[in-house]
């Protein structure tokens, strides 16, 4: 079987490695329009701030592809996929055949604002090249504006702030991190950013980006020497245009990560997931661990070993300045009357914790300021265990896995 993978990132490489472990001989080809070997897109803010060097963003050694016997076509863009012929066309004109195809093309920046044509100080930050450009521009600039108060926007804002720039963040919604925080947590976070000298403007709409600043729809003008756009992503699916592959918000795949077409699989940011925590909500869940896992599941099934993706839920973790924060599952429940929540808030210490339940199941959690043992909660959410016996203890100071022993756990071979 001839395996072809588009995308040399979290999902693509994870799939290739999985295939290689199962099948030592079938040819594997990874195609990427980027020139770099596998690097971490998530480290782009750290690369910009200088915390991570270019070398540090690389996730595999130079000899990785050779050792794994993987063919690479780097710097080649896939223009079109021909499912009928099991081939695809590269922008160089070359045509490649595939037995099984994995689309792991990720998601690109969504640029939803009007921009003056020809300006050179407007950036996105999806690739390391983008990042290099931002980094260079930051050397000259004094003021930077980041459009987008989501996770990536704030990460970029913090990175630029650490380089000494005067940074303004523009957010569409009233609160920061609108999908991962609630209003209290968002407010604490705003204090953290403002306390570190970042201007935060929320509830604003950008009407136009010019070379010397950003005009808001309310007439305000934010003067800046550079503008970085980080407001949402859109799946990279152009190459599937005109095919039968079912597309929703992203590529639609089943639990084996297979599309509606026999030989085409999809994994990572490009996929439209169903939030298994609630009501069949469909969404793009652009996070690293999910891409790795979907890549592994896709790879395994492509190589003939059946495995199912356990389902997608939101989660993210980040540290802004000295404040770590973790958000898992469904954290906003306005309008859902069956939910109940427990909150611990220590204003002085800037510690905020919130758990969201639906009866005796955990649905979501926010940890801000203090995140120890968060993983135990994440797992309770993921496994949708009945937490009735330990409900009151979930936010106690001594909470940990020890408490879970009361709840049936399948694999505990290591406990005598």
């Amino acid at each position, binding site marked *: 079987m001839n395996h072809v993978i588009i995308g040399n990132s979290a999902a693509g490489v994870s799939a290739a490695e999985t295939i290689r472990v199962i099948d030592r001989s079938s040819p594997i080809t990874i195609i990427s329009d980027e020139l770099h070997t596998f690097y971490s897109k998530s480290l782009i803010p750290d690369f910009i701030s200088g915390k991570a060097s270019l070398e540090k963003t690389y996730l595999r050694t130079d000899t990785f592809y050779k050792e794994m016997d993987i063919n690479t076509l780097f710097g080649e863009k896939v223009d079109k996929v021909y499912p009928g012929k099991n081939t695809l066309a590269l922008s160089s004109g070359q045509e490649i055949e595939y037995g099984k195809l994995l689309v792991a093309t990720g998601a690109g920046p969504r640029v939803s604002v009007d921009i003056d044509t020809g300006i050179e100080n407007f950036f996105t930050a999806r690739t390391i090249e983008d990042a290099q450009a931002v980094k260079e521009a930051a050397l000259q600039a004094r003021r930077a504006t980041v459009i987008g108060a989501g996770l990536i926007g704030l990460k970029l804002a913090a990175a630029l702030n650490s380089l000494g720039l005067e940074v303004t963040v523009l957010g569409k919604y009233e609160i920061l991190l609108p999908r991962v925080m609630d209003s209290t947590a968002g407010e604490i976070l705003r204090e953290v950013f403002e306390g570190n000298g970042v201007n935060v403007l929320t509830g604003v709409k950008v009407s136009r980006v010019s070379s010397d600043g950003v005009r808001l729809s309310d007439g305000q003008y934010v003067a800046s020497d550079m503008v970085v756009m980080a407001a949402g992503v859109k799946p990279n699916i152009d190459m599937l245009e005109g095919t039968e592959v079912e597309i929703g918000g992203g590529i639609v795949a089943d639990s084996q990560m297979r599309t509606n077409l026999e030989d085409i699989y999809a994994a990572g940011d490009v996929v439209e997931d169903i939030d298994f925590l609630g009501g069949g909500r469909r969404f793009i869940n652009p996070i690293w661990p999910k891409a790795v896992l979907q890549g592994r599941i896709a790879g395994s099934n492509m190589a003939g070993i059946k495995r199912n993706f356990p389902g997608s839920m939101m989660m993210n973790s980040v540290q802004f300045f000295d404040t770590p924060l973790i958000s898992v599952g469904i954290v906003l429940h306005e309008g859902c009357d069956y939910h109940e929540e427990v909150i611990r808030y220590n204003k002085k210490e800037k510690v905020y914790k919130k758990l969201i339940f639906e009866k005796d199941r955990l649905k979501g959690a926010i940890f801000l300021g203090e995140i120890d043992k968060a993983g135990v909660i994440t797992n309770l959410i993921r496994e949708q265990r009945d937490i009735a016996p330990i409900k009151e203890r979930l936010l106690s100071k001594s909470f940990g896995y020890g408490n879970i022993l009361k709840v049936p756990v399948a694999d505990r071979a*290591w406990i005598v």
Partner: protein
Amino acid sequence: MKEIFIDIGRCVGCKSCELACRVEHSRSKNLFAALSESPLPRRRVFVEYGDGKKVPLQCRHCCEAPCVDACISGAMKWDSETNLVVHDREICVGCWMCVMVCPFGVIGREKDSRVAIKCDRCYERDEPACVEACPTGALLFTTLEETEKLRRGRLVKAL
């Protein structure tokens, strides 16, 4: 292959393992001297309490470990030679993705240097420091087969 097993009923909650772990991961390897080190050595084993039981817990070195999947920097890795989940503090950026996903909650943080901290199973030692430190034998460093024998032996006795 030897692993750390936990004989839960035996833990008395003295936290000797926690102290031994920190001493082992200190520069001086001496309790008294370790107290004045900066940064202070962090524990990688946690004595937890639940359901009337005291549970000493450290990294389970999962296969297909969630922390390895989640790590955005490549700092958390599976080492196929030792079958251990290893962490490289030089690479770690302190994003705490691993803390978010470890189902056992055994990844700690070195807050000042902003790196994750977790059990390395004292790979340089014959026996992990926590196991050696346990005065009651609640922590065992042995193979699955041996543990099964023990478990079955107990079941038989209980009959």
